[in-house]
């Protein structure tokens, strides 16, 4: 895994979560995903194509997602509220947008699709050319997981 290419995602998640939730965050765990990815709760997925390809899943357990969405909405939201999913998608969009801004300015070119609510229970794991990394950010609202499965065709060619 090219950690220098992963670092912008970590920095962006840290910055966006800290600013959006007006708090300090901490990366508590970073690990390679050996198993097939299993969704924890409410998740948003963003796919990318180009010099860097793959997908990133932004995943929160349901209670944390509700707390985060309620904090950002300024009022308590029920779990069933569509705004909870919308909020998680937009947070994912902001994290990934900020990360690819950094990477693009470093010379990597790729396109991202708008984030989508991820409903599948299982997703990609690591493979020969697609490495998956999962990291956990601790926030006062709970843990936010970012699961990154990327491959770098520019470097593997």
């Amino acid at each position, binding site marked *: 895994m090219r950690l220098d290419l992963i670092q912008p995602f970590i920095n962006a998640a840290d910055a*966006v979560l800290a*600013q*959006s939730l*007006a708090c300090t965050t901490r990366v508590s765990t970073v690990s390679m995903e050996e198993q097939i990815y299993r969704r924890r709760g409410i998740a948003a997925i963003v796919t990318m194509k180009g010099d860097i390809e793959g997908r990133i899943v932004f995943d929160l357990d349901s209670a944390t997602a509700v707390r985060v969405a309620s904090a*950002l*909405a*300024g009022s308590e939201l029920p779990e069933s509220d*569509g*705004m909870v999913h*919308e*909020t998680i*998608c*937009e947070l994912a*969009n*902001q*994290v*990934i*947008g*900020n990360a*690819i*801004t950094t990477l*693009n*300015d470093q010379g990597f070119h790729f396109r*991202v*699709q*708008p984030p989508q609510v991820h409903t599948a229970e299982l997703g990609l794991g690591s493979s020969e050319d697609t490495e998956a990394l999962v990291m956990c950010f601790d926030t006062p609202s709970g843990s936010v997981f970012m699961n990154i499965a990327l491959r770098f065709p520019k470097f593997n060619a």
Partner: protein
Amino acid sequence: MEQVAALLRSKDRQPIRFLVVDDSIFARKNLSKMVEAFGGRVAGEAGDGCTAITEYSRTLPDIVLMDIIMPNMEGIEAADRIMRMHPQARIVMVSSVGFQENIIAALQKGARHFVQKPVKPEILYDVIKYVMGEDVTTTIEVATGAAL
């Protein structure tokens, strides 16, 4: 709560009218809350570039807040089309994707400014004042939330 002076159109001292374009309902809602806290009014919303073009012609807003990555038609192309039809349009790109190529492309199509997400209210406020130029005036102070 932070106090800021409400922004009004200098020609008639009416609220600045905004078209908010973003595929995220959450983002539209947050941007709407911010501009309303500045004394503005949301004249319309759109969730993609195609709708933004028709909504612009329908509402003729003072400022468009335009996301970049959207389904159907992205924000830079929508900005280009709006500027061709309405050269006086004031378009501010608001996106998490802020790399130089995108910003330059948007400015070349006629966008007046770029604001990176997550949007800080004080930055958006200053950008609105800058983009409105002599067409904006300020009035009594209103309260605005800081954590949008």
